[in-house]
């Protein structure tokens, strides 16, 4: 018997028509456009909390809000509010505006600001730097300055289990790790405690997370809140070299990415697709214990996007052979930095300004102290 194919739905996303299966979300439709034509990658709404391998995730960070200019062919009224594209399903004839709508971009800018007001910006010492979704998100959509003057929330670092460290200060509460613990491990021991901006990812009475798949919370974390204790401070990601490898594992698929520094395997992670999502979750034995090349069958270098910092210094021949490569990259990838402060190059003025700023900061901290 011939399989009956479901009727495809046609939607218009930023002026591009795309046909998708019923039940697809706007986000997946946009990703389909970008997968077909890589130059359209910038059209895809950013996702900070949505994670395709984890059903029911999404809808929380509001980074992917888009405007639906026409709900469907039957009912072409626009939707009254911006909708989260990661969980909104497409309808026949839907017209979606993402990068073509200034209100959407303006809202996105404010979401960056909201996410960053309690984020420590300690990228120089953070293990996630270079593969951090929040870094990408704020570089692409954020503003160079902050309007937030108050203290940021801080937490102590907690060890959850022998391999994972939680640095709650960096967390943006995307709930991905909660869903991971809920869905791929059979004994859920961690979740969210407290509420509002005091909420924290935690385990009950700092109980250790102890199961074979707990390490996956590190891979799903978009920021550096959950880090691998066997890898902490060993290297920057752009100094390490990713290689695809596999092994026979009785617990998981065994398909991993090995991160080399010199001859040494410094880290093992699951393989990720172009959206930074894990293809197949791996077990803790593969991740934390098999750190010798002899444990693995090497498949070859992992494909890394040229625009990624991880590819830096790894393709010297390319750069030498094509001297205009960097210029091309600069022309296509760099965006004007959104900063309306006056720029001065005069050394004396710069020195004065920095003194002035220091004075202001001191004055403010004095005020804060008086208040207490």
């Amino acid at each position, binding site marked *: 018997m011939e399989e009956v194919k479901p009727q495809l739905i046609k939607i218009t996303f930023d002026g591009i028509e795309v046909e998708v299966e019923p039940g697809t979300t706007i986000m997946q439709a946009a990703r389909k456009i970008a997968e077909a034509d890589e130059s359209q990658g910038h059209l895809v709404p950013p996702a900070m909390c949505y994670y395709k391998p984890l059903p029911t995730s999404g809808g*929380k960070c509001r980074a992917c809000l888009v405007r639906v200019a026409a709900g469907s062919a039957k009912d072409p009224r626009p939707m009254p509010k911006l909708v989260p594209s990661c969980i909104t399903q497409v309808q026949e004839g839907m017209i979606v505006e993402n990068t073509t709508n200034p209100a959407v971009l303006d809202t996105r800018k404010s979401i960056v600001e*909201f996410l960053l007001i309690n984020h420590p910006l300690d990228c120089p010492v953070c293990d996630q730097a270079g593969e951090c979704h929040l870094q990408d998100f704020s570089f692409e959509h954020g503003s160079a300055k902050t309007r937030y003057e108050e203290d940021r929330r801080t937490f102590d670092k907690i060890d959850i289990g022998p391999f994972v460290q939680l640095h709650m200060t960096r967390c943006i509460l995307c709930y991905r790790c909660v869903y991971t613990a809920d869905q791929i491990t059979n004994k859920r021991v961690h979740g969210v405690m407290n509420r509002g901006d005091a909420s924290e990812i935690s385990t009950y009475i700092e109980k250790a997370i102890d199961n074979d798949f707990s390490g996956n919370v590190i891979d799903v974390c978009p920021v550096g809140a959950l880090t691998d204790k066997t890898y902490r401070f060993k290297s920057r990601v752009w100094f390490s070299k990713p290689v695809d490898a596999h092994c026979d594992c009785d617990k998981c698929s065994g398909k991993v990415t090995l991160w080399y520094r010199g001859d040494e395997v410094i880290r093992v992670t699951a393989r990720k697709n172009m959206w930074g999502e894990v293809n197949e979750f791996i077990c803790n034995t593969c991740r934390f214990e098999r750190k010798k090349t002899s444990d693995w069958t090497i498949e070859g270098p992992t494909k890394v996007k040229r625009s990624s910092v991880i590819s830096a210094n790894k393709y010297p021949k390319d750069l030498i052979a094509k001297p205009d490569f960097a210029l091309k990259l600069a022309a296509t990838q760099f965006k004007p930095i959104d900063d309306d402060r006056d720029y001065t190059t005069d050394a004396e003025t710069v020195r004065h300004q920095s003194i002035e700023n220091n004075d202001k900061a001191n004055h403010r901290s004095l005020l804060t102290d008086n208040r207490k």
Partner: protein
Amino acid sequence: MAIKILTEHINVPGIETFEVYRKQGGYSAVEKVIKTMTPEEVVEEAKKSGIRGRGGAGFPMGMKWGFLAKPEGVPRYLVCNADESEPGTFKDHHLMKCIPHLLIEGMIVSSFALGANKSFIYVRGELMYVIRILEKAIEEAKANGFLGKNILGSGYDLELVVQPGGGAYICGEETALLESLEGKRGNPRNKPPFPAVKGLYQSPTVVNNVESISNMPWVINNGGDAYAAIGIGRSTGTKLISASGHIQKPGVYEIELGVSVDEFLNSDEYCGGVRKGHYLKALVAGGSSVPILPAHLITKTAAGEDRLMSYESLSDGGFATGTMLGSGGFIVFDETACIVRNTWNFSRFYHHESCGQCSPCREGTGWMEKVLHRIEHGHGSMHDIDLLVDVAKKIEGNTICPLGDAAAWPVASAIRHFRDEFEWHITNPHEASQPGAVFMGAVLA
């Protein structure tokens, strides 16, 4: 004498007991519904009555009931939202405390209409004594055959469960309430799917406010058309208003919708006017989350018409010059109230009550509270005012549930109408941060 639907018998001694309530004509609606009506007819009466949700949003209750999905073999639930915790609103508390059987009777009638065999009353956890009153009332109703198996020999079963909440404001949002009722963390769900399709335990569910459900016995006894005849325009029936603040007689009043704000505020039957020797400065008409109005926009709309206590009239002029009826928390401020301090206080509440799930609300409410704290305590600067307006605008409409809007509206409206007071706080930090300091500029002008 104005018509009373909910509070007619509220002062009868012993009305909280089954016998007295029954003597006053109680439970006749249950008898009428079970013996003579079909569920569809009850829903039809609710639609005819035009009664609108009394929890704040004002969505027509009959229409909500009509949306309930009815797949075969799946249980349906009715949940009564008694998690009333908005600052300035205390009507449901009063109603459940004084006349619990009215809610029980309404729950039986409504559950019958929706075909629910198990219904829940989700009461906020702080009201433990009210929960005991309700449980006692349920026991009495059960003993007299109005609840439990085979009600009045009709074959219809109904179990009523009172569930105490944990005391979180967010659990008054219907999907957060359902999560909490399921025993999970009270985080609002993404919509769609709406509770009418997938609600409690993924089954079709209707969530209604205490006051909405308590109106049902009267609607059944007197007919939906009689209910629709009360009130004005699309605001039908009566509404409980919890009046508080600087007035002569604070308390819960039942008004016919369409009474003028001037009459409600100043007549001796209701609030009795602003306290002696003082005059009106501002008013919050529907609980802390609705926009605050300055004195000149309270009794008259911007167009110069009389403002009435109704859904339409209060929202006349949109958010620029109007407000909302909301849940009926009528808070009056006289000239001794500091608007900046009050806005900070409201903002502090929303900061504390944000669930922390979506980023604009989690971070934005805290940010607004900190900036308002700074302004109130004399450390603000002029650009902070614009910052507040911008942050409020960025939260509004971008969150999962309406708590973000509720946090943004009071701040945005206070700045819209009382910007001079905020500026005074910034230009006179020392004076403004003294205890009890109040901006008198509006008086001189």
